[in-house]
């Protein structure tokens, strides 16, 4: 089975029903994508599949419908993506465990809506839990990244 992650294609011999989350974390060692609940209730495992936000804990390997982008593929410490740079400017993370999922969800949101309102951000991000309660800074960082990306 072929799987493309962050522009790299891997040929894998794994059970077809293995969730993408565990393929990423335990087989490809891409540990940026996190496990929080395994039941689509927290958003910690959010990745992009063909540009669309997906809960990697819910997508079987055989069902992955396009190339996958994870937090590692969005940008790197040396070259962070606009969203990641905004996250750093706004000092969003506390424990940070939920943040990869938050950022990937925000990436999908901005791809669809380059200038979201507060209410639209709230709606788009409602599936992503943060037990540290970093919501106000997440919202501010999304607005900031959105305006940076519009200008770019």
């Amino acid at each position, binding site marked *: 089975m072929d799987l493309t992650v962050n522009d790299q294609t891997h040929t894998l011999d794994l*059970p077809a029903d*293995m*969730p993408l*989350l*565990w393929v990423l*974390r*335990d*087989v490809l*060692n891409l*540990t*940026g*994508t*996190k*496990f*929080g*609940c*395994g*039941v689509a*209730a*927290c958003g*910690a495992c959010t990745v992009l599949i063909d540009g669309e936000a997906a809960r990697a804990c819910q997508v079987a390997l055989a069902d992955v419908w396009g190339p996958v982008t*994870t*937090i*590692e593929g*969005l*940008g*790197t*410490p040396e070259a*962070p993506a606009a969203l*990641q740079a905004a*996250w*750093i400017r706004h*000092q*969003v*993370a*506390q*424990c*940070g*465990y*939920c*943040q990869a999922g938050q*950022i990937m969800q925000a990436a999908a949101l901005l791809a669809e809506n380059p200038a979201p309102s507060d209410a639209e*951000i*709230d*709606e788009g*991000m*409602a*599936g*992503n*839990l*943060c*037990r*540290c*309660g*970093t*919501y*106000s*800074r*997440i*919202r501010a960082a999304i607005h900031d990244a959105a305006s940076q990306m519009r200008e770019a």
Partner: protein
Amino acid sequence: MSRAGKITRRTLLVGSIAIAGGVAFGVWKVRQPVANPLSPPDGVALNPFLIINGDGVTLVSGRAEMGQGAQTTLAAMLAEELDLDWDSVRVIHGPAADAYYNAALLEAGLPLAEYGMRDWQHSVAGAMGQLGKLFGLQITGGSTATRDGYARLRHAGASAREALKAAAAERLGTTPSALRTEGGAVVTADGRRIPYGDLAEAAAQRTPPQVEPRDPSQWKLLGRSLPRPDMQAKATGTAIYGVDIRLPGMKFASPRMSPRLGGTMVSFDPAAAMALPGVEQVLDLGDGVAVVATNSWAAMRGAEAVEIEWGPAPYPPTTEAIFERIEAAFDGRRNSRMRNDGNAARTLDNAAQVIEAEYRLPFLAHSTMEPMNATALYTDDALELWSPNQTPMVQARAAASAVGLRAEQVTVHTPFLGGGFGRRLEADFSVLAARVAREMPGTPVQVVWSREEDMTHDFYRPGIIARMRGAVANGQAQAFEARIAGPSVMHQAGRRMMGLPLAGPDKGHVEGAFDQPYRIPNYRVEGYLADLDIPVGFWRSVGNSHNGFVHECFIDEMALAAGRDPLEFRLDLIRPESAVAYRVLEAVGEMSGWGAPKEPGTGRGVAFTWSFGTPVAEVVEVRDENGRIRITRAWIACDMGRALDPSIVQAQMESGLIYGLSAAVMGEITFADGEVQERNFPDYDALRMHNTPVIETRILENQPRLGGAGEPSTPPSMPALANALYDLTGTRARELPLNRHFDFIL
């Protein structure tokens, strides 16, 4: 405070301390203490907090980073004195490599920020010994909270700076006073720069000079909002948490322990699990099983697939029966009477009108974002642990004794914690990893719990029943009596963590109720301990999390009975006890426009709790939207003396409030057939972005002492919300969670 203080000095047991949200201890290698525990393979360690090599300066944090920003502020204390450019600051999490062992770090008094020990707590003779025994030796040296870390680290930085200057002076044939420091270098009068790296070797030969740290008026870093050194990694998915440890040849395992906590396993059948692809072994742990596999998914599925018959629970099987047991504690012996001003009983007996109320608060789970886990490698004479934890010494001891080693044979690495909130003070996850690893010597194994296993095997915030009586006359409080019943966290933790039965008055059980700066002429707070074997633990803000609620809701009930405005009523009671607390309360009134008329369809509530050395007042606003309730806004005023990093303080204040509101609105752990019924986030959710209020925080700096930041905003959030709901609806919530009685927009 003074009268409460006197009582406490006589007590034997210092209850829960400010550990849950705040404290943590770094990477830890258990060995004999030595003068300076650091011995970097390349470079020089001038003191236990500092490593200088060719690449620059690395600051060594003795505390784990679980979101609270400890490593940032800790580093800033050193960088301030050392004149380091903040951008160049690197922080490692205690010695990050085996070569950097630091058993002596805390024994030598490393920065131990148990936020919030108050002066009178510091003076409790022998109490620190208790705490030390309880949480590992590390706490003994640093028992003086943030202030101690604060003084100690700034001293360490100042001393290192002067040693570097002295080394440079010697080399240049001048005096240290002719030199200054800047950007990680010693600079001569004519502008020549010698980087610290070139001087470290020589500086390390000198006796560390004793110098006073700089006056705060000279600070360039402390007192400012600094970019956190961990932020970039956390925004790019490169920060390594416990579950991200990957070792060559590592296996994955997942446990399944009795859902009846502490109960036995009667029998099990591994066949269904063994049939799953990726599953390699089902280990019989005696009290449960662990399924070893090639990946976490197979391990978790396998654990679920094992057929197991469990023995009964060692406690009553249902929530109702459990609360009956708690209620029965009122008939037993009183455990404490930590406040007893005037004569509450007589005043209440003679009062024309007595206000009475009973509050019932549920058990709560910590529900950290990263489920419990630890990775272990066992060889016959050593155990290496990668454990996201808050107490490395406790982990080492507990894991060692579980696998028949001595604590000295255990190395504990502490990666980033995906949330702590007190859950990771416990060592059960390290113990499980060690037990699994022992069955497969030489093979590293990551033992990761499913969310269901995590939520149903917590050390819960205890369920509580509080019986309150009060009397008011002429608009003033005459008497306040609180009797609080529930299982004792401290007594349980004492058995669990130090193997010793603690007895005596449990302060933690009544904190947040007996120690508040209210002047009420007849004021009594009593604790009753329920005999219950449900595992209970340190939940963010600990006893304050329930007592803050009952105290502040009942103060509201008394204000109402007195026909007074709840904020004015509090201001009157607090003014004679504490000017610091008064100003906090006054500030929150001003911020929230308390004096101005409310918008139609809204309700407001106020509450105040002094916990972990920091007085915090909060106002919460709720709004009726077509019969459903939205929590719209919240205001926080706090005073921790000095805000060493205002951005981190603000983040912690918001975080603590959201954590509290989440529990108040929807948090509840219930039992049926001896098993916890809430298994995953759909059953035990928390506020999310769309239902979190807009929050405004003001940080005051009137207090002469340093207080904590990680926990003190949690206790007042819950009563402020309940009081706001009363204001809006006229319904008084005396039970949590609030969604039982109110229809929130969630």
